[in-house]
């Protein structure tokens, strides 16, 4: 069964500066939607608004056409990977997988080198390893939509490739929204890409749109 997540009519202001004003975003089961944008254009704020972490008056968020008013998000419907590490450092890896109702062997199929960490505390892992566990629990646990804020940062290229495989596997059952400055990966795995610029979202048809809207320059595009 397909589910839909739609966002529009968002107005976000900090003092006199309007950050978001004309946003439209749609995601559905089976699709990966990317959000690109220069630093400070409001990508993380947009995700926090959708997740209910940033409360504003002007917004319209709809799950399957039904408006969501409260800031509570049922984790069976939406999960969110924030930009920074979010798992308490003292938790053991086995406890984290139990909390999210996930099988550790499913994880080690993708990352066999992690099998020795089952009984470790999270604080004993490196920054990149912690991030991989965070990405996996959000992506693989039961939910209809998940939002990933900068999942590829601090991850080595080999593991980025594995994470892209997990995203492609998981999107069969859920809708995924991703933002990251590593735009090549976003272009590679997303079915739809929106560029956030001057508070507005633009649906990107091809890479030339990214140049027209000032996100890339021509020399970067030639190198791609």
């Amino acid at each position, binding site marked *: 069964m397909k589910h839909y997540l739609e966002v529009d009519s968002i107005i976000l202001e900090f003092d006199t500066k309007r950050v978001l004003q004309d946003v439209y975003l749609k995601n559905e089961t089976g699709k990966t939607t990317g959000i690109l944008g220069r630093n400070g254009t409001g990508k993380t704020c947009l995700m926090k608004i959708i*997740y209910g*972490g940033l409360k504003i008056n002007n917004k319209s968020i709809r799950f399957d056409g039904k408006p969501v008013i409260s*800031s*509570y*998000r*049922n*984790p*069976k419907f939406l*999960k*969110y990977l*924030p930009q*920074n*590490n*979010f*798992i*308490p450092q003292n938790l053991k890896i086995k406890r984290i997988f139990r*909390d*999210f109702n996930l099988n550790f062997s499913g994880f080690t199929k993708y990352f066999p080198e992690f099998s020795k960490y089952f009984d470790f505390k999270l604080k004993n892992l490196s920054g990149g390893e912690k991030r991989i566990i965070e990405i996996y*629990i*959000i992506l693989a*646990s039961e939910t209809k939509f998940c939002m990933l804020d900068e999942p590829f940062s601090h991850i080595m290229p080999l593991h980025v490739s594995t994470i892209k495989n997990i995203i492609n596997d998981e999107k069969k059952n859920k809708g995924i929204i991703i933002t990251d400055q590593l735009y090549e990966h976003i272009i590679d795995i997303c079915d739809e890409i929106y560029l956030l610029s001057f508070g507005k979202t633009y649906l990107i048809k091809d890479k030339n749109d990214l140049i027209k809207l000032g996100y890339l320059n021509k020399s970067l595009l030639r190198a791609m």
Partner: protein
Amino acid sequence: MNGNFILQVLFWFKILTLAITIYSINVYKRNEFYYYKNLGLSKRMLWLPILIFDFLLFLTALITLASNLHETLPRS
């Protein structure tokens, strides 16, 4: 200076330390709240039972202390 004054100071000191604790945890552990929110536990759901338990424990201790003070103080 009497027992009632000390109890009042203790009460307001508890309120102050509770406010400082809530503020500092909300600031320094702000990212970790996402772990629990992803499990369906909001900030309010995490704070409320802890604060109620802590405050009730404090009140019980305070009332016990007050009744002991009342019994031991010389009657005028």
